[in-house]
Structures are given as structure tokens and as C-alpha cells.
């Protein structure tokens, strides 16, 4: 699986939804993530990609969409 597929798999698991939003679509506005699902998403990203996301990077806009998450993960590697 490439990074985007891995992110989508996590998103489906955290959001409990089987459909997938557009890569640039807001995960908040589309109802995939709320305030309490976002920390779960971040935790799963850390586990899946073997990274530690520092608290200073925990701005919701960095995790606003699949595209933004993908960009963040690739910059962290």
C-alpha cells in the first residue's frame, strides 16, 4: 500500500465509515472527523508510520484533508 492508501485505511477505521472523501475535502466539514476523533487519527498515524508527531505540530489544519495528512507524513520521513 502507498501512503495515501494507508491513510485512507486509518481514516475508515477511526471514522467508522466505509466511503472515502475526496483527497482535498475537509475531513471536518464532511463529517469524517470531529474534535474527539482527531486525536485518535493522530495516534493511529504515529503507529502506522512509526513516527512521533510532536505536540507543536498538532494544528488541526495540518490534518484537515487526506492530501494534507499525506504531505505532512512525507515531510516527516
Amino acid at each position, binding site marked *: 500500500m502507498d501512503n495515501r492508501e494507508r491513510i485512507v485505511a486509518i481514516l475508515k477505521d477511526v471514522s467508522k465509515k466505509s466511503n472515502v472523501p475526496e483527497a482535498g475535502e475537509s475531513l471536518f466539514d464532511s463529517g469524517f472527523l470531529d*474534535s474527539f476523533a482527531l*486525536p485518535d487519527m493522530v495516534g493511529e498515524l504515529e503507529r502506522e508510520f512509526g513516527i512521533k508527531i510532536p*505536540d507543536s505540530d498538532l494544528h488541526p489544519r495540518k490534518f484537515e484533508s487526506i492530501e494534507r495528512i499525506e504531505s505532512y507524513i512525507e515531510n516527516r520521513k
Partner: protein
Amino acid sequence: MAAIKAFGAYLPARVVGNEELAARLKCDAGWIREVCGIEERRYARDDESVASMAVEAARQCLERAGLAAGDVGLLIVSSGSSERRFPGPAVAVARGLSMDQTPAFDLPLASAGGLFGMALAATLADRYGNVLVVASEKMSSVIAREPAEPGVAILFGDGAGACLISRQGGSARIVDHVLHSDGAFADDLRLGFNAPLEMNGRSVIMQASRKLPAVIGQVLERNGKAAGAVEVFLMHQANQNLIDRVARSLQVESGKFFSNIRRYGNTSSASMLIAASEWWQDPGPRPGQMICFAAFGAGFQWGALLVEGC
């Protein structure tokens, strides 16, 4: 080593249920319960102030401690919703308690103010003897400011809590505390003068979800204690979903996290002391029991404080 002698609290008489609030904010009462676990909160009367509520909580605390106001060596008053820029409510509280000769100062912190006050009192008790910490908030006056954001206005209530910390005696000794702050997120939860409260809820929840378990783990680890060994966690009552999340992160059953948010809402810096006041009365601490306080709020400022029943 400093010790806790007593807690006290004051809640205004007027109960505001979700139905009443939902009608004002044009939202659904069931939604309020779902997103924060709050069913009702208390609103102060127009003639009640941050200082007057603080005086009531302080009186109850002193009575439970078996002390007179003249026995207090230092007064610390925390509030993020005081009515004026200066002087803060501390001197008015001192006057209300007839403690005009006692040094009194303000701690203008929202949410975490009660915890920071306790930590400060524990540090200063050796010098000042009996240190009275009071946290009081009139959040109803804050959320009355327009435009009211329903996601914010549903959360808050009014009230005051107090704690008496002494250099000796008491029912629990203060073992240790850890305090943190990070101004990088200062704009994510803020209250300007005569402005509505502004909150980036996603940022607040995300940061609190990580920082609260971390700071609790920090104070426990450096004292050789496991989370499972703690009898009760007395946290800032911000949101029931957040409290449950912190419990899960620490792998502790949620029942160990005392909660009264359903009845009082989020009373900002007062909430942790109000919760402690209720728990201290029933069941209260027993010798050897570990009790962990924790709070997170605007700033961001957060911390944890560990005590042991004696």
C-alpha cells in the same frame, strides 16, 4: 510537607437545563448532552460576582478546616472571568472575609487556575502557614456576550471552589506537582476585554487529549506510582468526553475519574476545586490513598498534582 486541610464550594441557586439553553441558542438539547455530557449548569444572579461567590466557597472551606479567617496567612484567588482589569477579586474576597491584614493576590488563569493555585500554595505554605486558594468564575456573563457561539456557550456554568493548604496537619499531604505552559496556542482559547470567548475546539481537545495523560504520567512516574494505584483523579471538569478519553489513555477505568460536569457544566478554574470539595466530603481520603489532580486550559497551561491521604 504541605497538606490539604479542607475544600469548600459555592454553586448559585439558579439551575439552567439544556432545554432552556437550547431555546436561547437555537440548538438541540440532546446534542448538548451528546457533545459534552452536560445536562444542567448554574447561573449566578445579577448581584452575585466572582468575589461574592468566592467568599461563600471560602467560608465553607474555613468552616470545614475548623479555622477562622484570621488564621489564614495568605489568600490566592484565581479567576479568568473577573469583572474588571484591576484590582482583581482577591482584595474584595479578603475584605468579604474580614481579612484586610492578610496578603491577597490574584491568579488570572482560566481552567487551570485552581490547580496552579494549589501548587503555589503548597510551595508557599512553609512561609505563610495557612494558605487559602479560591477559584471563582461567572462564566454566564462571558457567554452572554454576542455573538454567542453555541458550541462554546453550552459548556459553561458559574461557581466557586476553595482549598485550604497548610504547612502541617490536614487530611492529605501534597507529594509533588508538575506545571507546564505553551504560548504557541494562546490564540486557540482566549477572552478579550468585552469580547466573546473564542475557542478553537479541535485544537483544545487535541492538545488536552495528549497533554493531560502525559502530565499525569509525569508526576506519577517521578514518584514511582502507576496510574492504576491512584484512588481517584480529580480533574478540571471541561467535557465528559475529554475526561473519558484521558481515562482510556491512562488505561484506568473511567469510574476513577470523579465527575460532576453533568450537573454544573464547565466552571473553568473553579471546577476542579468544586469536584474536590464534593469528593472530599464523600467518600474523602483515607490514609495511604493516592489522589491525583489535573487541569488543562487557556494558555495553554496545564499540570498535575499528587497527594496522599494521611
